[in-house]
């Protein structure tokens, strides 16, 4: 007996792709194994660690707690979609590099997507708010000290007042510019 497949369209990082999947395929697996977007990582598959966090209609969501078939009619952004069109790093990515906010890098995509969305809602977080933004993601390497610094630095980098060079950054982020990623 073979399992029923569902032909669905997934819109990821501004690109719509058609895939044929069984209903039980987790969104995390579909992104990784069917679309080849391996930047989204799977750390626990029960929604606790946050490594698989992607943005669904702009909001951070655990990709391991959604079925791909349930993600139709949504706009998904993965870590691959945070890089700017010209290939340079977005402000959150840049801040993590500057602040040494990552070590093994495995949990990092979940932090990047989460922080990106949170800074859109609250571009000028207090120190406590910066900590709260990353409170639902596990990291085993960094002890979080530099991750919190990176959140605060990202807010600075994304602030158009802060630095001329990054004037356009915030808007770029909002537009979810399409990025074609090879499967």
């Amino acid at each position: 007996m073979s399992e029923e497949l569902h032909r669905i369209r997934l819109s990821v990082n501004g690109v719509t792709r058609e895939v044929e999947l069984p209903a039980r395929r987790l969104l995390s697996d579909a992104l990784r194994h069917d679309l080849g977007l391996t930047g989204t990582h799977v750390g626990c598959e029960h929604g606790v660690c946050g490594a698989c966090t992607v943005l669904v209609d702009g909001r951070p969501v655990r990709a391991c707690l959604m079925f791909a078939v349930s993600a139709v009619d949504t706009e998904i952004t993965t870590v691959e979609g945070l890089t700017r069109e010209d290939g340079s790093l977005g402000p959150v990515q840049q801040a993590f590099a500057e602040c040494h906010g990552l070590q093994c890098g495995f949990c990092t995509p979940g932090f990047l997507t989460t922080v990106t969305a949170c800074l859109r809602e609250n571009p000028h977080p207090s120190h406590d708010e910066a900590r709260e933004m990353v409170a639902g993601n596990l990291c085993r390497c960094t002890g979080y000290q530099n991750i919190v610094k990176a959140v605060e630095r990202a807010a600075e980098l994304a602030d158009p007042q802060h630095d001329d060079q990054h004037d356009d950054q915030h808007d770029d982020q909002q537009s979810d510019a399409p990025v074609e990623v090879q499967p």
Partner: protein
Amino acid sequence: MKPAPFAYHRPTTLAEALETLAGESYAKVLAGGQSLVPLLSMRIAAPHALVDINAIPGLDTIEVSEAGVRVGALVRHADLLAHPDVRRVQPLVPEALAHVAHATIRNRGTTVGSIVHADAAAEMPVVLSLLGGSVEAASTAGTRTIPAGDLFLGPLESALRPDEIATSAFFPALPAGAGVAFEEISRRQGDYALAGVAVVVHGESVRAGFVSVSDVPTVVDLTGVPDDELGEAALAHLDPAEDIHATADYRAQLVRTLVRRVVTKAREAAA
């Protein structure tokens, strides 16, 4: 850790959803899925079918009136938490919601789903009980209103029948002059509480709901109990249990500490 196979239905009307549900021998309703999907992935549950209600229009509304807050089945915790009128009409709802898991889970998880999951360690079932709210259930046979008092039958067991979909929950408004507060203690922030207490104070009346210290969401009337006896009075109705995170005695200690703190806060809020 991958789910067993299941048939998948994505109805676009409630009627279609109810018919599909009625036709399946063992089906589960998928709304937010934040509790359900881990159970499926661990193969603790293996329903034959899922009825995904996310494509049904009209279930994602929050209706706020002077009577209270009606929350549709697809309303995510995050939206209810952020709604300014909800806070005005029934502040206990957002106060408790802020303790539901982590923000990312609240972005997808639904309040109605959490209620009918009927976990006595979860915040929203107890809040519904304490406030005397209700759940609206629909089936092909029609709709009915289940008062919170009749909803929670046992651990993870609600009065919702397998062919029913909970379409909304209703939280009555806070009467003028009343005050509420909520507090819980968990091992890590965002974990299930080791113990939690919600309190409504209205005039002389003091009522408290308890999280994680009984099999089903439990509300205790503490009206007239002297402050230094609140804990023991509450514990007479509760059954804190031991698990790997805490002894029963420690949970009882948390009940004593929390109930006094939360009653005080609720009184302050009422004033």
